[in-house]
């Protein structure tokens, strides 16, 4: 497992940094928010990302992808995090591509990958049912109905749900509400009869939706992977999502931190730069340390996932927990150290804190992953 980028990954990183800085600065998110944009992201820009090949990083070459892997996609997500770019990278290029690749059959791959790689199709994972991440607690039911199934349930915190063409629905085909067994993944067209999707406006001005499924009929070919056996591929997909999200958070944290350091140099009070005050210096130095160790954890998790290493889940939890704590730190210290202007909507630093708070909760907060790290370690 390499913790230093190879030259290919470095190239991706450099081009992604340039891409988002040029085409999707934080101002773009503000505009999407203030104009109450119906999509919440830029479709032309998404097409450009697809053209750059980012949508295919986790897709097999046989299906038009590059198999470039998580380390590469992590560089793109980190760069997107730096400018808080709203994109379907996580929902589609990472989660859906992984789910279809890891659980799908050949027919499904042929059906879904072309649209995914081209950027035409957007996908959303409809997983959460409670206020806190809990991938095993599934009450949404999928009941046999002739050849197919009928789905009923309510999903929330569905990233990119209201712009998705396809939903990947986690439903229960057997077992009790908290059983790992009995979970099945279904591909459900967003426009299927009985599907209702409402966008929910969150503090980070990014896309999430509530999805209700009322008597939604799907065929047997909608089952992604094994019936009753969805928990294992779901966990593998979630580990990638956690590491990918951690990479995005690392980007946001790095940016918030660097902007704060710059502000400490620029802002004068009492005739000197406030960065000359030792209490602020020490706190800035401590933030630096946290950003650096987070970077190591994120890089290790991405690499371990690409290698299917034994400790990939452990590292994914480590990365998400550290990224959550560090995003909290850099967001809050960023606002505090910016002082008065930090508390205004006009300044961009607050956007970082808001995005951090949503990302903290997504796919398990730091406490969830500390618990998981302990369980995986055996205590």
């Amino acid at each position, binding site marked *: 497992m390499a913790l230093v980028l190879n030259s290919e990954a470095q190239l991706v990183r450099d081009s992604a940094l340039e891409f988002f800085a040029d085409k999707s600065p934080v101002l773009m998110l503000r505009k999407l928010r203030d104009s109450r944009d119906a999509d919440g992201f830029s479709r032309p820009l998404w097409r450009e990302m697809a053209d750059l090949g980012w949508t295919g990083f986790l897709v097999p070459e046989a299906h038009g992808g590059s198999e470039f892997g998580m380390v590469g996609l992590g560089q793109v997500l980190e760069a997107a995090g730096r400018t808080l770019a709203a994109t379907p990278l996580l929902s589609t290029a990472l989660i859906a591509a992984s789910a279809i690749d890891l659980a799908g059959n050949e027919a499904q791959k042929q059906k879904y990958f072309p649209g995914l790689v081209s950027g035409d199709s957007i996908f959303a994972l409809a997983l*959460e049912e*409670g*206020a*806190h*991440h809990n991938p095993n607690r599934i009450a949404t039911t999928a009941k046999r109905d002739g050849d197919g199934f009928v789905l009923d349930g309510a999903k*929330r*915190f569905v990233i990119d749900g209201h712009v998705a063409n396809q939903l990947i629905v986690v439903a229960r085909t057997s077992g009790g509400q908290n059983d790992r067994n009995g979970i099945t993944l279904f591909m459900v067209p967003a426009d299927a009869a009985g599907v209702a999707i*409402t966008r*929910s*406006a*969150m*503090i*980070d*001005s990014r896309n999430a939706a*509530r999805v209700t499924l009322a008597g939604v009929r799907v065929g047997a070919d909608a089952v992604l992977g094994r019936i009753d056996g969805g928990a294992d591929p779901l966990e593998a997909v979630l580990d990638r999502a956690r590491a990918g999200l951690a990479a995005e958070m690392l980007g946001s944290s790095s940016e918030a931190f660097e902007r704060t350091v710059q502000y400490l140099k620029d802002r*004068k*009070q*009492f*005739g000197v730069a*406030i960065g000359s*005050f030792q*209490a*602020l210096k020490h706190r800035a130095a401590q933030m630096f340390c946290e950003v650096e160790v987070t970077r190591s954890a994120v890089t290790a998790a991405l690499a371990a996932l690409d290698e299917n290493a034994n400790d990939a889940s452990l590292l994914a939890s480590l990365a998400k927990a550290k990224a959550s704590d560090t995003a909290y730190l850099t967001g*809050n210290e960023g*606002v*505090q150290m910016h*002082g*008065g202007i*930090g*508390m*205004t*909507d*006009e300044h961009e630093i*607050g956007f970082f*804190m*808001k995005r951090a*708070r*949503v990302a903290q*909760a997504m796919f398990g*907060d730091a*406490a969830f992953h*500390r*618990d998981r790290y302990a369980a995986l370690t055996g205590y």
Partner: protein
Amino acid sequence: MAALDIFRAETRVWLEANCPASMRTPMPTDEGSSGGLRAEYKNPETKLWLDRMSAKGWTTPTWPAEYGGGGLGKDEAMVLEEEMRAIGCRSPLSGMGISMLGPVLLEYGTEAQRVEHLPAIIKGEIRWCQGYSEPGAGSDLAGLQTRAVLQGDHYLVNGHKIWTSNAHLSDKIFCLVRTDPAAKKHEGISFLLIDMAWEGVRARPITLISGYSVFCETFLENVRVPAGNLVGENNKGWTIAKRLLEHERKGIGGIGAPGAPTADKPVYVIAKDAVGEVDGKIADPALRNQISVQLMNTHAFQLTRRRAAEASEAGQPPGPMSAMFKYYATELNKTRYEAVLAAGGDQMLGWEGDEYDPNHLRNTREWLRSKANTIEGGTSEVQLNIIAKRVLGLPD
């Protein structure tokens, strides 16, 4: 029966008879009464209660009766407070007139200034705001650049104030201005009273990260201020400013104290609703521990406020702990809303819309609002500097 007991009995009877029923319920955030020419009363009993109390001077119980205040002694004022608390009366009036400017005018104002301004404050007729900070003068307040040039019978004022709380809803503003740019920075400052309606005064609300607009930028362009609106001596405004900041910090120290607006339900109930419970305990032990840390620190801090109040009642000096109130209360308030958000999960991440419970949305906005608590009114860093210097005596 001692005089104080008689006062207590009479007060109890009067409050029982005069405090409207809805004024005996906890105050919703949007029903506070700050008075002023532009005041709107969502609940008409708010106005009724204000009028009844101000007629007795009990909006400012200890201010002299000659200006319309209650004229009560310290003991009586405490009895009034106790009796109001006993039946849950809301405060009839709040704002910077009562908490900041009034005490300053009583200490530093001329008789004419008191007569002009105090009655209007007491009755809630005029709402005041504070023109202190400037874009270049935040923690370094004394670095302010707003100029006031004495020209015969008036000052000509030019400058740009920021963080003027509710300036767009206020009638008047008390301002720090620089009257001697050649003097050392603390020595050329004066304290002026300015009418927001005067020509050249303009307030622009600032939107905060919470979406609330509680602060403004206030622009002063060639504003003519009568020389009689100077409080205290020319170039001696810094002394007044410092005194006033002490009043402000005391006020902010009340955040998170009993009576401050609270989340719709206790944070542990929010947590139980969101993650369930096992044997009566919140099912997520890390969350439960976080909540205990928060509630216990709040409990200990409330006891500290009470200890300070008791010491003050006992005639003891306020003690060094009062210097910590602003710092501790605002930091606590941030951890409090962090616990609320941690408990609530994704239901506490909403910005607006029908998908979210209005109580949850309010909690989320208050969480964002709390982030400003440790900045406004003197940052936490400034408070720690003050404690280190004044209480601990550590050298510069």
